[in-house]
């Protein structure tokens, strides 16, 4: 099925959400919606939107038909905790906009401004079925661990159009645990107290903006842009991605979130499985790298590749990611999810953890994350199990547009591939 279909597709690619009707027929659908898995169904796309997804969907006359026999359709994958769009060559700083070491701006750093839709990483990642990313600021610790927050994350799309921001400022990013301790001078107790003091400052600022602007009120250690950026956090409107691994650090953060009425998302959580019931009870979602089983630090001694499966079994809402901040390896997302399945996570839960779960948690599930009528055509047709290295994407739609299955590494391959 692979070769003939690809040829046909190549002729019909459109770079705009065109006014056409497309039907992907006879494929297995993993809808991530109420319809669940449909053994043999059709996804009908009109003018870039899904109008129907399921069995027994009639294909209108004149529709462009994509034969999905033997294939699987999933929503486009979402790479959480990524730097896609904000980095080109990791070790070439002018090509990377993922971090700041300016002491004058930490929480205020807005990664959604200054992204690069021409990044060659975007088509590479699309070939792995990734259509969106939660692009997340990193800390730049070249001058020491100075900044409390690394900035605000954004949901972006990989369509390579100028308007690549799906939703800006979706979360604040905060490292606690070992890293947070280092930022506070070397002790966890200092980091937590300092964080509470910062939040109190922000609340005070929010109540007394006018006095602050007059130069009155109490002195604030944070810059105005940082205070302003943290107001939605203390008001519970913006979640905080908290990077933390040790079980006891997780419990501390659950406690702090309750005390301060913060919405938090745990990120990393290598020992999350040890306190899974507490995380589930708090209704806090977790971003996990499913293959991270190394006791890399004293905060990750309990790391295991069964973390994802155990958290899921405890009822925690899961998001899977790979290689935090290493955007070049984003294409490993589906393999990471596959490994989670090998270690006990149900297959459908693994797909949910890279589609509908991140879409919901980052506030874009009205547009993407499932195959449902009304959503953007943001989906991938695979020639087999999407989590298998042995499978490849055959059609990728982002924001209603069918994307070419090309990328710079394939151009290099073709240039050097001997003629046969």
């Amino acid at each position, binding site marked *: 099925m692979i070769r003939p279909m690809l040829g046909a597709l190549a002729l019909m690619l459109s770079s705009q959400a065109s006014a056409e009707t497309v039907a992907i027929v006879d494929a297995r659908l993993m809808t991530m919606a109420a319809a669940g898995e449909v053994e043999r169904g059709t996804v009908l796309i009109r003018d870039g939107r899904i109008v129907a997804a399921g069995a027994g969907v009639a294909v209108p006359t004149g529709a462009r038909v994509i034969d999905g026999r033997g294939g699987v359709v999933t929503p486009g994958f979402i790479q959480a905790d990524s730097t896609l769009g904000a980095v080109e060559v990791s070790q070439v700083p002018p090509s990377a906009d993922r971090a700041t070491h300016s002491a004058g701006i930490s929480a205020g750093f807005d990664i959604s401004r200054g992204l690069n839709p021409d990044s060659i990483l975007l088509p590479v990642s699309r070939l792995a079925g990734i259509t969106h990313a939660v692009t997340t600021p990193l800390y730049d610790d070249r001058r020491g661990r100075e900044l409390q927050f690394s900035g605000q994350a954004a949901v972006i799309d990989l369509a390579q159009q100028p308007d690549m921001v799906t939703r800006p400022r979706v979360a604040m990013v905060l490292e606690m645990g070992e890293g947070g301790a280092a930022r506070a001078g070397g002790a966890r107790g200092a980091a937590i107290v300092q964080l509470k003091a910062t939040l109190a400052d922000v609340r005070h600022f929010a109540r007394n903006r006018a006095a602050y602007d007059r130069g009155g009120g109490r002195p604030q250690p944070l810059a105005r842009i940082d205070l302003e950026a943290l107001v939605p956090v203390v008001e519970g409107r913006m979640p905080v991605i908290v990077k933390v691994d040790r079980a006891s650090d997780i419990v501390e953060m659950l406690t702090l979130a309750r005390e301060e009425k913060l919405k938090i998302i745990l990120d990393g959580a290598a020992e999350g499985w040890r306190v899974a019931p507490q995380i589930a009870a708090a209704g806090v979602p977790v971003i996990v790298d499913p*293959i991270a089983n190394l006791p890399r630090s*004293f905060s990750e*001694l309990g790391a295991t590749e*069964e973390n994802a499966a155990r958290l899921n079994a405890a009822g925690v809402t899961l998001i899977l990611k790979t290689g935090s901040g290493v955007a070049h390896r984003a294409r490993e997302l589906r393999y990471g999810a596959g490994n989670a399945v090998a270690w006990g996570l149900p297959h459908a839960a693994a797909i949910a953890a890279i589609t509908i779960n991140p879409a919901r948690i980052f506030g874009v599930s009205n547009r993407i994350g499932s195959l449902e009528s009304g959503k953007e055509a943001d989906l991938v047709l695979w020639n087999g199990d999407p989590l298998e290295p042995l499978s490849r994407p055959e059609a990728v739609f982002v924001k209603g547009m069918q994307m070419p299955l090309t990328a710079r590494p394939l151009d290099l391959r073709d240039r050097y591939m001997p003629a046969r």
Partner: protein
Amino acid sequence: MGSAAERTVLGAGRLVGAALLLAVGCVAAAQDVGGGDPFTSTYRPAPHPPLAIVGASILTGTGAEIATGTVLVRDGKVEAVGADLAVPDGYQRIDGRGKWVTPGIIDAHSHLGVYPSPGTPSHEDGNEAVSPNTAEVWAEHSVWPQDPKFRLARGGGVTSLMVLPGSANLFGGRSATLKNVPAVTAQAMKFPGAPYGLKMACGENPKRVYGGKGRAPMTRMGNVAGYRKAWIDAADYLRRWEKWEKGGKAGDPPKRDLQLETLAGVLKGEILVQNHCYRADEMAVMIDVAREFGFRIRAFHHANEAYKIAPLLAKEDICVATWANSWGAKMESLDGIEENAPMIDAAGGCAIIHSDDGLLIQRLNQEAGIAMTAANHAGMTIARGQAIRWITANPAKAMGVADRVGTLEPGKMGDVVLWSADPFSVYAVAEKVWIDGVLSWDRADPRYQGSSDFVLGQPGQEFAR
């Protein structure tokens, strides 16, 4: 130490073998230009019952795929492999039906033990980044056998690995080739009789590390000048020793120099050059440097651009140890492609998928599967039987141990992995791993999951692997 002698030793009974090994060790430690190996392997596989894995699909590492077959292992060695083998009496029978068998996985590029977990400055012993030439250091003197990653790699089917110093220096030091067995000392992991490797590095790392300190090398031309200067010194050192030896060893021998001893070992063909080098143009320069001084490069490592000069590398018989997925972190790796290893393979070269990483070493089989799939998608024809060689027979060749490991052929070490499924599937896990015929990993039995001393009594270990 000659590898022929080692083969004889390992083929003999255990006690005799031990005695011979000691004798060989003594001989090797005697004065000569290579300096010998004073840190002799003390690895002795335990006795084990003869073993028959029956009914599995077998990738032999020779290129063959046997749909349903049997592997017999006896006295630490592969005894026989075939589709219709009778299981002799007294053999422990392992049901392989529905499963897959491969040779033990071999990682030609690892920093396990020299950059252990947890990663603390106390443990970071991989880069002697004080001088661009530290050919005098030996990775085995940094290896911490309690690195918990050895066990995790065993769970990924890895039975042998080459531990290299880092790439900060033009000459990083000697490699350590290890069997991935639980041990308390590095000597007890050393692959008996494996030749040493010399880690060299091209490109950005040395020039960044030393240029950043305002000293040479600061540029790629500085790198090359650094190599050539060192080889000139090594050739001179070798000549002085040969002169003394040819003169009937009369008078005092030249003073030993640890750094030059290693380089001279390369010039004599006893130590294998393992060259971190990303760009095609730089690899071509390194080939010329090797020709200028009369040595051979055994393998280019990382080598993201190897596919651009695949015929040259095949002609020079230089292995390429690379990844499918790693690219773009720096300028010299920007042109990395998934099909790199397959394109080397298709040109008739020696393709290797390596890890350089504590996570990837646990799933080299999947990384090879990614490269294989990408190649077949591009219209190449790479069968499983060929792709498995990238993580078995070919790394064995790069490490100079292909006569003992890397394939399931009679007489080879009994390093065998039983996989739950097609090893290139993301769902395949290593169910059992035998090293020299000894069950060294059993996913279902904690008695065969030998944890390191470090994790003992640590939090979370009651369920963590």
